[in-house]
């Protein structure tokens, strides 16, 4: 495994080294907690981040697999279009915003505004999420194994939100639906793929009450 030590290096140096190194074997990045925008816009490759990651980890990710073994800062996997981002620790405010595709897995907790304007990604949070998670979601799945804060799934347009625990309050334009066989199979698949201990049958499913909640 190739290693890049990001200590005292700036974003330009580290991301350039990363782009040159990815492709074959996984690349490990150490001491990168001070960098905001680490592994931005990678199209392929496998990146292992040892320790914490800063803000905007894997922003505009277009196909790379990024694994963080501690916590990530704010806006992890922002605007991802493809690929996988796995965070073993917690994620800060706004993880998985504006994603068009790919998978984001947070094994710890995630902050407020998680999966805002999700447009097609699968976002799995094994712990709890903060307030306003899943706001203005247009497509894709948000799966929360723990509890959610206030205004959960606010202004849902399309896409599905699954939650294993409880929420403080549910946002506008939401409706609870019973789980179908397809949902159970899908959840089981996600949990098996990422090794999350949870029982799909205990989950609640939230969908949009209307596809056109706005002016028209």
């Amino acid at each position, binding site marked *: 495994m190739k290693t890049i030590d990001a200590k005292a290096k700036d*974003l*330009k140096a580290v*991301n350039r080294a990363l782009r040159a190194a990815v492709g074959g074997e996984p690349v490990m990045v150490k001491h990168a907690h001070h960098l*905001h*925008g680490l592994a*931005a*816009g990678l*199209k392929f490759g496998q990146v292992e981040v040892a320790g914490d990651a800063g*803000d*905007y980890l894997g*922003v*505009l990710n*277009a196909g790379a697999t990024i694994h963080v073994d501690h916590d990530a800062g*704010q*806006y992890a996997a*922002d*605007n991802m*279009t493809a690929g996988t981002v796995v965070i073993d620790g917690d994620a800060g*405010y*706004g993880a998985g*915003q*504006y994603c*068009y595709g790919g998978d984001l897995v947070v094994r710890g907790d995630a902050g407020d*505004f998680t999966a*805002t*304007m999700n*447009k*097609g990604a699968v976002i799995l949070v094994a712990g709890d999420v903060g307030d306003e998670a899943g*706001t*203005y979601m*247009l*497509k894709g799945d948000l799966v929360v194994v723990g509890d959610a804060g206030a205004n959960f799934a606010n202004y849902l*347009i*399309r896409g599905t939100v699954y939650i294993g625990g409880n929420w403080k309050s549910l946002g506008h334009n939401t409706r609870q639906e019973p789980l179908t066989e397809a949902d159970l199979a899908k959840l089981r698949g996600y949990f098996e793929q990422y090794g999350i201990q949870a029982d799909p049958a205990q989950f609640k499913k939230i969908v949009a009450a209307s*596809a*056109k909640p*706005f*002016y*028209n």
Partner: protein
Amino acid sequence: MAVVGAFCVSVNREACLNARMPGKCATCAEVCPHGVYALDPVTGQMHIQNYNACVGCRICSEFCPADAIRVNPAESEYLSRYPWTLAAVEEIHSKAQTGEYLLRGFGTQGPTPNFDMITVVPSQIASAAPLDKYREECDLEVVIGEDTCARPLRLKLPFVWAAMSFGALSKEAKQALAIGAAMTGIATNTGEGGLVPAEAWLARGYADEARTRKQWEPGGYLIIQWSTGRWGVSVDYVNAGDAVEVKIGQGAKPGMGGHLLGSKVTEDVARVRGVPVGSDALSPCRYYDVQSLDDMRHMVAFLRDVTDYQLPILFKLGPSRPYADVAACIEAGADAISIDGLVGGTGCSPDIVTQGVGIPTIACIPPAVQALKDYGVHRKVKLIALGGIRSGLDAFKAMALGADAVGFGSAAEIALGCRACYACHKGNCPYGITSQKPELTARLDPVEGGRRLANFIHASAEEVKILTMLSGHRRIADLSPEDLRAMDLNTAALTGLKLAGYERPLPIWEAVTPRPADDQPRTNGNGHKRPKPKARRVLRSKAAA
């Protein structure tokens, strides 16, 4: 205020082909997208079924083969009963009936402070002599990001197209803007609605996707907009252009996100935006992934990173607090800042926001310039002025106030054929510019439209050149507020320009304007240096000492 009944359609029955031979001609009913005319299926006779539906776009009189139709503003006593004008009355009726606020497209209606009360000061004998427009050179090039980027944006002329999204505009209109930019060497902007097919290579002047054959010289540029809705954004999208523009706000609705009505969300638009067909696409009013200026700085850093430090980063601001906002953009690391004034256009916005929110363009530029000067980056970080710029004259005035380039938005639409009927939000644009209906967009030919746009740009550039040279400058970067005078107190107060006749800025501007000696030209026409003004000595009376 989309005024119902504000237009009066009159048909000359003697000239009308249908009146003479029923069933012979139905052009007006075919071209009118607003349902003003109707054809009787039995008799074949044409009649006006709904006067109130007319928005005054004049497509019927344009297409009438007999030139028999006139559309005039209704000159009723009702219209002049200010403040309870027909518009105000209709607005209240509409709200009372539906419970909904009014939405409207295009831009601000009615008089607002604009460039009209500014005059250009020509050179005579006391300042640098005028230059000869016909026989001498004038440099109109503007370079964005010269010192900071590997691939700076070299605009051949000091113009850009304002950001207008696919969705608000038709695909054909977006392609026409790209071709117009390619023909003139200026930049087109994707707007927030993602890339339109062919836009990227048309804007560079290529006739085919493989970029083997260059059809239009000198070839233009494409600015990629990175906006709050992030519609259609991927790493390839960001790298598809020659610059990235971070949209903070826009002139027509500062503080609100883009608003695309469901009637314009067709399958193509829905695919780019990821919203259901026929549902309103409402962009967030802010970046969900930016909570502080530090975050914005990091956003600029990763945008530079994913574009490999090649492309300039622009910011687009609505008209709010120009000094502080521009200062924040400089802090965030902008290479250029677009500032959009009150009159800036939109595809759709709440009427009250378009009408009553934001400050005029002429009042945005001086504080923005002051911020750039205070940071020592005026003319390095470029300032692009937008909002109600109609001609080379307006452009010159904006540039003399301190902008480096100007943007045309509404003016570009009008160059494509628009008649400013303020009904962009309906999605029924009869000229195919702000519609997504195939039968209407087929009326707009992108290449012909591009040619019209290029003609407009060439004419405006010549106008700027005339004015620059008659005021004694060889480069637009040398223009200064000294080349302008305000013709009324309001404009002098808003801009800090010298008041014509009074020849000084108004006293309220004294604290912020440099001493008059500093902005006087240092040489006269013969190249003799003026003596530097002596330091003023304050005389005190002995008694006070």
